[in-house]
């Protein structure tokens, strides 16, 4: 294996030791010199960018996207292996670095891993990569035998020429294969012939996660490494006014106290624990700037004003909603809200950096290696050719480790003060919570026009609140300033986020209000609040007009057969048409998100105000299903993430900063609360939908609708913990 690549970098790896030794000796970075020499092929052992075959027939499949638990590493390897016709038992994987990707004109495509895009956006080229490698391996064997490639066949890493009875293995011809011309035309298999895609194979990365050997960013260690703990202004956008570090600097092991940007200060010590203790002794005065008086209450007031604001961006419109509401036999209205929430990845943000006058390298768990590289370049003062990032396995991502790399900027700034030494920065849980990139805060007013038969004749859905895109990727706003992502799950059409109902006289619009607390893409993103607003309100309309919530929805779904099919599937499986067991109540929800159609049905009970979720039925139509058992794992996990958010998730704000700093105040679901989850996988073929996120969005509304059935109480403000469910 090329020593430049390392999926799980650890000091025990030869390549890293070589590099570290070079640095310690004051020389340049030995392990990156090869790229400076154009005469030498950088990758002598690869068949092509996606596939390396070693002499012992080990197949190394290159994975451009990041593994953070969602199983994409195994799924993407399955895609390549399907076409490669290799022996699955000999497959391993590795990450190319973002720096390599740039040097090779992005041969591996995008590295960003978010929006449930890993498989659905790269399925074509990764399969082509596998197919091309297979053809090159066959061509190499055929050349050796002096026969036509078309007379040879590859299966399970063995190439055979039936006519002459000869066979060889991939490992034996790999070096020759690398010299063959890539095929000009590639024909991918028909899905009906797949044997690896669609199989519930076990993950490739499980065993090291059971014996402590999996290396996460936090676990990295290099000889002579320093450790850093940081405190950054708890009011986002505020600055560091002054710091007295006299006591901190006297602590054992402390090597320095350094300012980081205009808002942070870090203690650098021999160990992290020493750095952390010393950081707690810093006497810091913050300047909160203009947001020092913002509170949850003031945010709520501001967003409430947006519910009636004249100006709003239109996300979905047909007919005349205002007119329909004005002439309706009956108008039903309800206002909902969704709070700021924290990703709360199990592994707090961290990175290790080394900086010299010539070079800067970073090791970090990231959902977007190229984004981390951009942050490294910007902070290092070097140009791109002198920087690289090594991706490390993520202890959770959920969107926090993708669009912004604030911790990478910090670690590079710190490492610059200690040239030639590795510096590892770990955020405490408290720092991680305070500097979350929060789920956006919104409110929503739903207004429905109904005729005297109880039919929906118009609807206005006004969302007021925060735009992720405006805050962190403003370049992706529409020309007029609209954030189209706000309307996820509510769009009139499209392959990703189409609304599942045909509603006459519809207006869905957004009054943008951007608090200073920085938002981020948070697993499920805007489908989370949108599905609560729409699916709970649909439930309200059904009850208001004395109709069955399933039947009420299905009437509006005639033109949306895939949305309808998943909803019908969960209803059938949970037994919607039969009475629930005594004391058990049911709720339903559906949404299209990230290209997949999903629905959920819940069975709950409420006793003395205490909610218990007994059973969940979930249905998913992702088009094609690459690894069914891993999709099931994503669906189950989505209920944990989604229900943690719905029941408990709330970052409250006082004096411009968030209050919750750890799991004792930011509660999440535990095993005791975990319901049984029955997952229906119903891939209908012909499209590729994501599976890591969409189900999050149906978890909350399915349960909240069941809570209404149980108690008659409509929970419109997330999280549910703020509502007393006790019967009056």
């Amino acid at each position, binding site marked *: 294996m090329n020593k430049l690549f390392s999926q799980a970098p650890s000091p025990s790896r030869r390549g890293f030791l070589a590099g570290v030794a070079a640095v310690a000796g004051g020389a340049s970075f030995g392990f990156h010199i090869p790229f400076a020499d154009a005469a030498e092929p950088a990758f002598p052992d690869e068949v092509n960018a996606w596939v390396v075959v070693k002499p012992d027939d080990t197949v190394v499949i290159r994975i451009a996207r990041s593994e*953070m*638990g*969602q*199983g994409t590493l195994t799924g993407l390897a399955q895609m390549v292996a399907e076409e490669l016709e290799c022996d699955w038992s000999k497959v391993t994987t590795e990450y190319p670095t973002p720096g390599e990707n740039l040097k090779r004109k992005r041969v591996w495509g995008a590295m960003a891993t978010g929006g449930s895009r890993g498989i659905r956006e790269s399925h074509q080229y990764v399969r082509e990569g596998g197919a091309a490698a297979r053809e090159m391996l066959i061509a190499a064997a055929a050349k050796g035998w002096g026969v036509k490639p078309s007379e040879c066949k590859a299966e399970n890493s063995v190439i055979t020429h039936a006519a002459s009875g000869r066979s060889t293995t991939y490992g034996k011809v790999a070096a020759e294969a690398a010299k063959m011309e890539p095929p000009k035309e590639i024909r991918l298999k028909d899905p009906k012939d797949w044997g690896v895609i669609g199989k519930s194979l*076990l*993950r490739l*990365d*499980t*065993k*090291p*996660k*059971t*014996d*402590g*050997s*999996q*290396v*996460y960013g*936090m*676990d990295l*260690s290099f000889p002579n490494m320093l*450790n850093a703990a940081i405190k950054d202004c708890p009011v986002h956008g505020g600055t560091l006014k002054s710091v007295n570090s006299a006591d901190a600097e006297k602590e*054992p092991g402390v090597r320095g106290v350094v300012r980081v940007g205009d808002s942070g200060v870090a203690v650098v010590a021999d*160990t*992290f*624990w020493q750095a952390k203790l010393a950081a707690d002794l810093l006497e810091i005065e913050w300047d909160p700037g203009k947001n020092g008086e913002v509170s949850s209450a003031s945010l709520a007031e501001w967003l409430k004003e947006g519910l009636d604001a004249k100006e709003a961006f239109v996300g979905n419109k047909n007919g005349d909603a205002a007119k329909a509401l004005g002439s309706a036999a009956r108008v039903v209205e309800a206002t909902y809200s969704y709070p700021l929430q924290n990703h*709360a*990845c*199990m*592994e*707090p943000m961290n990175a290790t950096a080394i900086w010299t006058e010539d070079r800067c390298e970073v090791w970090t768990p990231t959902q977007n290696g190229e984004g981390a590289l951009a942050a490294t370049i910007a902070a290092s003062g070097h140009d791109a050719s002198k920087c690289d990032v090594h991706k490390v*396995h*993520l*202890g*959770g*991502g*959920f969107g926090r480790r993708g669009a912004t790399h604030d911790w990478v900027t910090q670690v590079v700034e710190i490492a610059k003060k200690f040239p030639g030494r590795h510096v590892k920065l*770990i955020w*405490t*849980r408290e720092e991680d919570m305070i500097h979350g990139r929060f789920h956006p805060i919104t409110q929503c007013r739903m207004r429905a026009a109904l005729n005297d038969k109880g039919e929906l004749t118009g609807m206005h859905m006004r969302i007021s609140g925060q735009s992720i895109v405006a805050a962190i990727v403003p370049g992706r706003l529409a020309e007029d300033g609209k954030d189209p992502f706000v309307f996820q799950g509510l769009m009139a059409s499209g392959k990703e986020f189409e609304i599942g109902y045909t509603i006459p006289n519809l207006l869905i619009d957004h009054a943008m209000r951007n608090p200073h607390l920085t938002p981020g893409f948070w697993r499920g993103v805007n489908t989370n609040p949108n599905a609560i607003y729409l699916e709970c309100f649909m439930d309200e309309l059904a009850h208001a007009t004395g109709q069955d919530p399933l039947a009420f929805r299905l009437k509006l779904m005639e033109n949306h057969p895939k949305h309808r099919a998943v909803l019908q599937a969960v209803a059938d499986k949970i037994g919607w048409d039969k009475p629930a067991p005594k004391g058990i109540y049911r709720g339903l929800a559906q949404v299209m998100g990230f290209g997949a159609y999903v629905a959920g049905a819940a069975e709950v009970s409420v006793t003395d105000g205490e909610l218990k979720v007994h059973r969940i039925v979930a249905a998913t139509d992702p088009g094609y299903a690459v690894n069914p*058992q*891993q999709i099931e*794992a994503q669906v*189950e*996990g*989505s209920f*944990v*993430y989604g229900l*943690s958010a719905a029941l408990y998730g709330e970052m409250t704000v006082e004096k411009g900063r968030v209050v919750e700093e*750890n*799991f*004792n105040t930011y509660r*999440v*679901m*535990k*095993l*005791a609360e*975990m319901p*049984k*989850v029955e997952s229906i996988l119903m891939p209908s073929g012909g499209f590729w939908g994501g599976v890591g996120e969409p189900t999050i969005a149906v978890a909350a509304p399915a349960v909240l609708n069941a809570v209404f059935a149980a108690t008659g109480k409509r929970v419109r403000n997330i999280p549910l913990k703020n509502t007393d469910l006790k019967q009056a």
Partner: protein
Amino acid sequence: MVRLNVNGQVREIEADPGTPLLWALREQLGLTGTKYGCGVAQCGACTVHIDGAAVRACVMPLASVKEEQKIVTIEGLANGKPHPVQKAWVDLDVPQCGFCQSGMIMAAAALLKENPNPTDEDIRSEITNICRCGTYNRVLAGIKKAAVEGGAG
């Protein structure tokens, strides 16, 4: 100088006695399988065994661990062959990101030592570790499977 018995070996550690066991394991002994998740005994990612009982190492200062007490970390759980909990975890693909799983496995192994045939309710009340990926149902299934296959290890 602090002396600890870790995974069957007596180790000498240069650290302040107030240092939490978690950080001594990670930083002085290089046993990074035990994770930092919260530092306040909430999440359980730092769970190790002390004399067979599950302990949250992030709030356990070195000063309160006696030299004769036997500490076992995830790296020392397998005894020649994988512990039944580790085997069940592999068979069922329990981990997702895996960051919490060292602690989860140590908590599960300690539970099975105390209670070799736990009911679902026992597991639900005893396993209080946090997993943000949401592997709970497979954790439960894994503990049941390990129990059937001799989970006390």
